[in-house]
């Protein structure tokens, strides 16, 4: 053992000359231990609450992701102002892509027939009806004559939407009780024709309130939408005499 080792312990002990008294040090230890204990308890409780909230959030998120339609299920009939149900109706899906954000579209009874569908439009805010949208399909493999309102014998020069679709749109607001926006579109590749007619709510006697739920451009865009043209079954058509098919303001003029 070296000299320093021999001296070290004893010398260190001499360093405590002038050591202050312990005073309330022991009590302070226990007070501080209590603070630590409470802090840990709070941490545990906070962690537990956070974990529960996380589980709830995850559960809600997963449920929403897995069952996207769950929120709107079990609601009363559409005409009672309920949110639209998401049936496998590609026509309705296409209509919803163009409708204004403050409006809702729901199927209207009778909802559908061979070659046609109809939908009621409601105000999202008030739930009041805002009009009707009728969509009908036709087969015209040999082409059609787009009507001209002023001349029964003339054919309108259609606008084009892409390479495959041509369309013409019409508007009639002379009668405030039956204001109409209509568009007729034909897909050249298969001769499929679709007519979209949007009419305002009747009985308002007010031109503004009775205006159609689709504007002219919206009506045309919907009619020329390839999704809408493909939304009807291949054999669905309103070509023949069918009283259930929509009565159009401007009838589709098919070749004889």
């Amino acid at each position, binding site marked *: 053992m070296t000299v320093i080792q021999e001296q070290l*312990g004893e010398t260190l002990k001499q360093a405590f000359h*002038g050591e202050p008294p312990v005073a309330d040090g022991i009590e302070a230890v226990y007070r501080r231990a209590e603070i630590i204990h409470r802090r840990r308890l709070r941490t545990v409780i906070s962690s537990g609450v956070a974990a529960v909230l996380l589980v709830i959030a995850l559960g809600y998120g997963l449920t929403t992701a897995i069952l996207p339609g769950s929120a709107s299920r079990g609601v009363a009939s559409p005409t009672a102002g309920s949110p639209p149900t998401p049936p496998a109706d590609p026509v309705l899906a296409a209509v919803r892509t163009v409708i204004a954000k403050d409006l809702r579209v729901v199927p209207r009874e009778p909802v559908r027939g061979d070659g046609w569908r109809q939908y009621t439009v409601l105000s999202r805010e008030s739930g009041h009806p805002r009009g009707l949208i009728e969509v009908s399909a036709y087969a015209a493999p040999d082409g059609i004559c787009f009507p001209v309102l002023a001349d029964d014998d003339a054919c309108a020069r259609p606008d084009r939407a892409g390479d495959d679709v041509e369309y013409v749109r019409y508007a009639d607001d002379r009668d405030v009780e039956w204001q109409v926006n209509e568009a007729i579109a034909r897909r050249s590749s298969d001769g499929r024709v679709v007519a979209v007619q949007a009419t305002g709510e009747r009985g308002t006697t007010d031109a503004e309130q009775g205006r159609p739920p689709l504007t002219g451009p919206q009506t045309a865009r919907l009619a020329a939408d390839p999704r809408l043209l493909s939304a009807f079954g291949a054999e669905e058509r309103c070509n023949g005499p069918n009283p259930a098919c929509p009565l159009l303001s401007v009838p589709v003029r098919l070749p004889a």
Partner: protein
Amino acid sequence: MGKDSGGGLHEFVTGRYPDMRRSAFLMCGDWSVADELTRWSLAHLVAEHRRGEIDDPDAYAYAQLMAAFQHRPARREHVFVAASDPEGAGPDTRGPHDGADQIRTVLLLDALHELTPRCRAVMVLRHFNGFAVDETADVLGLTDKRVEAYEAAGLAALERLLVDSGSGGGR
């Protein structure tokens, strides 16, 4: 001390407080800091003991204490000075010192404070608290070899300083 005995725990805390405070003082040279860190370490011991998670209270308490110094700023915090009034000594003071003893103590403490915190902790635990090498290693989380190396380096540094100051052989 049993895990469940509150009385045993209180006895342990009461008994260890002065020794731990002195160890802390040797580590930092400041009685108020020593008090603070001793309370902090023993408070954690008490809190952990309530959860029944302490196997070796001594090792836990000293480990907490020495770890506290690892987290403190490395700057020199205090310069040891000889007590001016031997009559103000605490209960364990070993009577009045002669001048040579006081000087040697001051030199030794100052030299101790020149060491790195870990080396100083080894020196305090080994030569003041009387921990064995393996116990010191457990407290500080070191291997036995590292403890021995720190101790050798610390002793050499202290001896060199005392020899340089002319106090090394005096006694």
